[in-house]
């Protein structure tokens, strides 16, 4: 075999190996993007659920009128917010919930009215799941970003046209009185 052929074969082998490695990396990236999509859908669902329960409570008449208006405003704004305003609006809903349910007595008062027990449980569950879903989402974003910053991904444009993933940053500290009751 002439030396030229041998060299060509080696180059071919190397190219195939590189190709396989890049395809594997692209598969990893694809999986990460799918994970972000699922996590984002879950986060949206939890945020929406929290806003709905808050709005329900605000319109049910179990809270005093001032608290009702504050909560209704915040819940409504969170549901209507456009993508760029979402983080701010959801944070404001968190703050409104914290303000309304600052006192354990307020939680007790809501629980005493008919149907209040279920509503409190639902709200307590929602305010616990939002931080969970957000952490899972941001964890996926971090993993994808770490991989996308890698040279091989940037040089070979393995990410295609997928937008650079953004973390969802908001204040999601639940009202302490509500969480203690649920526990």
């Amino acid at each position: 075999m002439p030396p030229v052929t041998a060299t060509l074969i080696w180059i071919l082998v190397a190219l195939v190996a590189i190709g396989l490695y890049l395809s594997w990396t692209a598969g990893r990236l694809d999986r990460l993007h799918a994970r972000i999509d699922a996590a984002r859908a879950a986060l949206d669902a939890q945020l929406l659920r929290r806003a709905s329960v808050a709005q329900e409570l605000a319109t049910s008449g179990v809270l005093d009128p001032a608290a009702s208006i504050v909560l209704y405003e915040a819940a409504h704004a969170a549901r209507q917010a456009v993508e760029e305003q979402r983080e701010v609006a959801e944070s404001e809903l968190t703050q409104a919930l914290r303000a309304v349910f600052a006192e354990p007595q307020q939680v007790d008062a809501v629980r005493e009215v008919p149907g209040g027990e279920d509503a409190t449980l639902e709200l307590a569950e929602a305010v616990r799941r939002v931080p969970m879903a957000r952490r899972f989402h941001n964890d996926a974003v971090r993993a994808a970003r770490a991989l996308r910053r890698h040279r091989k991904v940037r040089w070979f444009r393995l990410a295609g046209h997928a937008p650079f993933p953004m973390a969802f940053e908001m204040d999601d500290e639940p009202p302490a009185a509500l969480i203690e009751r649920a526990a």
Partner: protein
Amino acid sequence: MRIGIVCPYSWDVPGGVQFHIRDLAEYFIRLGHDVSVLAPADDDTPLPPYVVSAGRAVPVPYNGSVARLNFGFLSAARVRRWLHEGAFDVVHIHEPTSPSLGLLTCWAAEGPIVATFHTSNPRSRAMIAAYAILQAALEKISARIAVSEYARRTLVEHLGGDAVVIPNGVDVDFFAGAEPRPEWQGDTIGFIGRIDEPRKGLPVLMKALPKILAARPQTRLLVAGRGDEEEAVESLPAELRPRVEFLGMISDEDKARLLRSVDVYVAPNTGGESFGIILVEAMSAGAPVLASDLDAFAQVLDRGAAGELFANEDADALAGAALRLLGDPGRRAELSGRGSAHVRRFDWSTVGADILSVYETVTAGAAAVAADDRATGLRARLGLARD
């Protein structure tokens, strides 16, 4: 919901992670979920109906002690089959960074994967070397759970990303309702743990014992756990040795009764703890707790509000604190009361519901778990795999 749980350590060897998985599985079964646990076990050991054996674990030196791990071709095949037959909505892996079933499952599965990180080992050399491989497997995990704030911090430092904190669970009422045994009562100090494992801290307690006995000669130390009893009391003067009673390995019922009986429970562990389930069990039983001030212990004891802390590995501090407690029934009753109230958050009803919320969060908007075909290797990638 169809839940698959992966246990990395041998089912036949008792251990914290195994007990946690057993209790978790039984809690979900009681709620009516479909649960299957994949665990290493000898083929002839009797297993509960919900456990599937992944074959015998091989003892190998790992991370400073001999660990029994599962790896290799056969184990990987069993993992695949289990995933395929289970058709789970969610797979919950425990200890995904240990080179055992957890990592294999991560490698082989696709879909909603939840992982609990129990230990918080500093990153080992092997892990740095395997970082690229590990990262590719770990990035499949949709939700990470750390058992304590301390475990979460180490996890974030070593692997990046984030995790939610859900503590280990305890059946509080089982311990709270146990009947005390009269022969274990009256000026007794309790210790539960491996006798021959220095990190469990029995040597520190033995060093403190002469001082305690000098002030209160009627005190007895009750030790429950596996290990060489002769060796354990070697450092003690011969005339003090009868004050130490060894109970050997004890059943769960006896453990609860022991914790209900003792005046003070001492946890002198010197390190390697990421949670401290035994402290929660002791508090559930209403035992006043005295523990070394490890990060994890301080957190479980609510920064010292639910139990007393002493400087780690300081036998004099331990003796001083133990004597103060033994001589002050009022303080003991106060600690017991605070402990009992504090442990409600570790009860399975709370912990199990939290873990279920994690499952529901990750399964919302995601497909079920399947075997990951992309991981089968070259053949699949080239489109040559047979179906």
